[in-house]
């Protein structure tokens, strides 16, 4: 049998469990309408108005996501190399050392430009 079928099975069980829980939560819980209860929670004070589309957040998070992509792709290149490491031998080692060094240059650049600083 296709090895991915069991994954679908366990995923379906988890999904079903989630659906049942959501339905149960909607059925069993009390419903007492209260205007203040439906406001956003801000420790009891009047909620601050939200900007359209969910609100603003620091650009740092976006930058972190971009940096993550760079290194994640590096990892994607490292994995096949690691699995076939013994067949590749010295050639593979030198190639990969060059590749890691190249990415390392970018890493040092980001570090020096303050891309990894949080304040």
């Amino acid at each position, binding site marked *: *049998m296709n090895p991915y079928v*069991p*994954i679908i099975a*366990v*995923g379906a069980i988890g999904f079903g469990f*989630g659906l049942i829980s959501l339905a149960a939560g909607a059925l069993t819980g009390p419903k007492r309408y209260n205007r203040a*209860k439906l406001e956003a929670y801000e420790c009891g004070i009047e909620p601050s108005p*939200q900007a359209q589309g969910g609100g603003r957040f620091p650009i740092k998070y976006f930058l*972190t996501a971009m940096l993550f992509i760079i290194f994640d792709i590096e990892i994607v290149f490292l994995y096949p190399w690691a*699995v076939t490491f013994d067949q590749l031998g010295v050639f593979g080692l030198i190639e990969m050392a060059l590749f890691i060094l190249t990415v390392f240059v970018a890493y040092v650049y980001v570090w020096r430009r303050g891309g990894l600083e949080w304040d």
Partner: protein
Amino acid sequence: MTTAELIGQDPGWLITVKAFMVFGLCVILTLIAIWAERRIVARMQMRLGPNRTGKFGLLQSLADGVKLAFKEDLIPKAADKIIFVLAPLISVTVCFLAFAVIPISGPVSLFGRQTAMQLTDLPVAVLYILAVTSIGVYGIVLAGWSSGSVYPLLGGLRSSAQVISYEISLGLSLVAVFIYAGSMSTSEIVAAQDRFWFALVLFPSFVIFVISMVGETNRAPFDLAEAEGELVGGFHTEYSSLKFALFFLAEYVNIISVSALATTLFLGGYRAVPGLGFTEAWLGGWFTVFWFLGKVSLFFFFFIWLRGTLPRLRYDQFMKLGWKVLIPSSLAWILVVATLRVLTAEGASQFIIGGFTLGVVLLVLAASTLYERSKVKRQAFLHNIGEMPEPSFPLPVMPTARKNERLVIESHE
């Protein structure tokens, strides 16, 4: 016969039974884990912890679940209704998926059929686990965004930034394991550890993995996403009732999955401790499950221990550890391991290998000494600033010291 072939023969009904068993194992482990955590943390803080519901308070988590079911299911006015409901569903669906490729036992007989307690065996199993845990981030970030409130938004972003930052070092720490095992399949990695655990052979990888798995699961001391003093509850602030329970369940299943992954990759999985004389024939079969669960509980106890011992880090310190310490050191370690492996494979003399190892150790020592010295210099510099009469107010010594230096130099000019 390999595990992959053994599992490949399973008929459909057996797969269904095993899928339910894995799901049940995750849920029961979660219930026990929550109880154990509360009891052990209580002991560490000289309290008793929950001891009223059932024997030793064992039913406490179940009672909490039932209580949550009878709480009002709120959807805030400002929330994006569909995504608000969808987010816990994503989290809970995805959290079980990682367990599909974890080998829980060796070959066993289940309802008269030979099989192994592992749902499926992929040649890219570990890559699959990383992929699935990444999908879990969607649940977090969508929950934070769709709540329409400030605290959950920031909490969700923090969580996701944290998870993706530590995923890099987590991924890099696995490369050395793949080099040694020559495979990404979980069952073959377990089989490759029949003589030595990778935790011993690849100790630095193991340390990096353990640190990043704590960061990856948002646990203390890295639980910045739910820093109560700053963000209330983090991304699930607006969630109540069973929706909250689903997030809670997903979080604990994730902790158990990474513990299981650590067991599989570094502690020999379901196998007994090598060298003690436990053979497959004597203590094989279903008994291997106890080895597996024992090792997983060891990791889980470590999580609880951390929570009971360490204070929470500040966010900038946390990101600094991930990006500036773990990533470069794991990259360097990969190169060292690869070079050593090639040297041994090429039949280099003991002399060269020893020289290389010595060189690496000396380099690490030199780097750490230089780092310490620069730190001492900077501290002395900042200390002198404090004694200078010129700034009449006391200059606060900030952690980003370089910025302070620049400020002071500019003011001197």
